[in-house]
């Protein structure tokens, strides 16, 4: 039990610090991290530029094999990198899915030639990847895939619709799961591919969210052609391949959404409640404490997961805890922060609302974070079944 750096860790931390100091902008106080996966052209360019520098410095894919530009480092080094990066305003969302889900899936199923072709450009941010799993009719049931894949000779023809695809509009490639055989039970008859997102027949429409922002897209496929060489895994084995991808999704180290407890503290320092400074309000203090122990508990749970990984243990779905706790906490903090302002809590004008209306914006975004990437209910099921070993829901 040692939360201090080893000599090697300290050296690496120093390396990261100097890299970031020269290549990134420090984050403004109170500014939430730019986690959006749908960014404009300028921000995309900035993200790609930074990613190239990061790759050149050998700081991408730290745990990957050296052959692929990684360092074969223990996962703890990823934690150290993320700790340091948190202080900088870096548009990370763009590459998370590609490097966190798509490329790891490629590494498990693609040919050496394909990996030679694709890993490098992804690593350096030259090519962006997206994933195409969810469908409108499926909801939380990821295996309920209707998008059809039909094979003629060495070519597959794709028809159907995917939804909740972030970054589709600027992605170069994507991975997708399709139904190649509708006659067999749901989890069989799926086949997995990677494809060129610029292929003819692909139409991308942004989804406008309740908050007004658009972090996701609908993607329509009309007679899109994929060569059989881009199939990942055997025909009919698409579900198994998907699980590889989803496991990696849960492994992706989640940032703490903002506002978090520090922001609630900042807010309480700025305002007073019924004549007394908010920091002296016992109820506000209890709320701050409740939120703090959740945030810290999550932080150290993530560290424990990294330690387990470093020892070659598979972390498993404990990582589901992070999103479940963070999403509820976000909605709670946002709503409570607004309550502290009285009726003025409703105001979103940046010049009037404390901390650039961070709380109000989070309130509108929070419902999405309790749903996207696994609803609260699905995450509780995952914990109950895969961690606690309780029976699955009755299927009909």
């Amino acid at each position: 039990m040692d939360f201090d750096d080893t000599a090697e860790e300290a050296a690496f931390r120093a390396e990261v610090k100097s890299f970031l100091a020269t290549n990134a902008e420090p984050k403004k106080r109170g500014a939430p991290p730019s986690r959006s996966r749908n960014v404009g052209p300028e921000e995309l360019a900035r993200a790609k530029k930074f990613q190239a520098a990061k790759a050149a410095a050998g700081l991408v894919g730290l745990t990957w094999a050296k052959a692929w530009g990684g360092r074969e480092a223990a996962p703890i080094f990823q934690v150290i990198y993320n700790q340091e990066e948190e202080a900088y305003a870096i548009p990370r969302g763009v590459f998370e899915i590609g490097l966190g889900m798509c490329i790891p899936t490629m590494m498990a199923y693609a040919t050496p030639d394909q990996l030679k072709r694709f890993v490098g450009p992804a690593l350096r941010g030259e090519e962006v990847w997206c994933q195409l799993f969810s469908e409108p009719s499926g909801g939380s049931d990821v295996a309920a895939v209707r998008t059809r894949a039909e094979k003629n000779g060495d070519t597959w023809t794709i028809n159907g619709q995917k939804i909740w695809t972030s970054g589709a509009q600027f992605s170069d490639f994507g991975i997708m799961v399709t139904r190649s055989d509708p006659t067999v039970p749901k989890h069989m008859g799926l086949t997995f591919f990677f494809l060129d997102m610029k292929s003819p027949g692909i139409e991308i429409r942004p989804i406008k969210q309740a908050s007004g922002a658009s972090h996701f897209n609908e993607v329509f496929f009309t007679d899109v052609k994929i060569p059989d060489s881009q199939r990942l895994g055997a025909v009919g084995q698409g579900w198994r391949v998907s699980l590889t991808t989803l496991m990696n999704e849960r492994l992706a180290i989640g940032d703490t959404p903002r506002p978090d407890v520090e922001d609630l503290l900042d807010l309480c320092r700025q305002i007073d409640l019924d004549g007394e400074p908010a920091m002296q309000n016992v109820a506000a203090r209890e709320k701050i404490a409740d939120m703090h122990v959740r945030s810290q508990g999550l932080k150290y749970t993530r560290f424990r997961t990294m330690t387990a990984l470093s020892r070659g243990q598979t972390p498993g779905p404990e990582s589901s805890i992070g999103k479940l706790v963070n999403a509820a906490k976000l909605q709670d903090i946002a709503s409570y922060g607004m309550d502290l302002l009285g009726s003025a809590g409703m105001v979103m004008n940046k010049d009037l609302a404390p901390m650039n209306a961070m709380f109000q914006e989070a309130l509108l975004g929070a419902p999405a974070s309790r749903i996207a990437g696994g609803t609260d209910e699905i995450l509780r099921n995952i914990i109950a079944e895969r961690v606690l070993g309780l029976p699955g829901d009755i299927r009909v």
Partner: protein
Amino acid sequence: MNFDFSEEQHQLRDQARRFLTEHSTSKRIRQVLDGVAPYDRAMWQEIAAMGWLGAAVPEEYGGAGLGHIGLCVLAEELGRSLAPVPFSSSVYLATEALLIAGSEAQKEELLPKLVAGEVIGALAWAEGNGNPNPKRIMARVSGGRLSGVKWPVPDGGIADIVIVAARDDSDRVVLALVRMGASGVHPEALETVDPTREQAKLTFDNVPCEVLPGDGWAALDQVLDRAAVLTAFEQVGLAQMCLDTAVAFAMERHAFGRPIGSFQAIKHKLADVYVATELARSNAYYGAWAMTASGGELPLAAASARVSATDAAWLAAKENIQTHGGIGFTWEMDCHLYYRRAKLLGLTLGSNPWWKDRVVSALESRNAA
């Protein structure tokens, strides 16, 4: 004893439900959401024509004299339908303030116009962050002229008259009546979490005004209690609508080969929403009665109704989105309109921490008595 509405009141509800279902449609609400208009003028005029604006106003001032319970019935339906009109500001706040504190002349001049919807009223107590508190009133009235900055003022950009809490020369809080035509009034529209209801920042620069007779804060306090009960009915109506919507969706949406409403995770979530909504409804009923009864029950009943309804509306609105899953947080679905309104209503008369304190203060004075 009788803990339900009368036959007439049920008929009023049916009429209101029919009208609002037909007119307060998603399409018309979204006109206001998208900023095409600050409120639905046509709907406002039709509502005025039906006499709703004067429901609780005595007949001598042109009202229907249905009493406050009738008004509660309408409030529940308005909340359920998200009607994008300045009803609460003009009726619960401005009209009530005049009824409580207005001079006979002011009542005779303004109440008929408010009832007819020709004049829209608003009430301005807030001066930025914070809950209602006489100490926070910095606006000043001197020599019949008002200066100060008030925000947020619900419907402040729509109103023809605004009743403003301010200090007079002897530092007492008074209510000052301002005609928005007057020179020196500078309204600024505010951006809020719920664009379907107008909110403004009003700057008064030496504006002519009439001071209402009597203790301004005592009157405001009473207006807030009544408005809390009426708003509680809006919140209960909203909560019920969210519950109905979520239940209907859970029956029809299938996942894993079953309606999602057959999963206990959804069933028990919606059962909890039902419980919160029923408790809030019962507290609101008691508040409605306390508004009309003598005996000083109102402060406790109003604060209880407010706290209970704010929690129920927030729970129902956010779990309605959760029940819908992905499409629940899309712009096209109306779920977010209820979510936005739920939070707005929970803040507009002061937030729950403050109202909870009022519950306990009322309990203390009751036991003291």
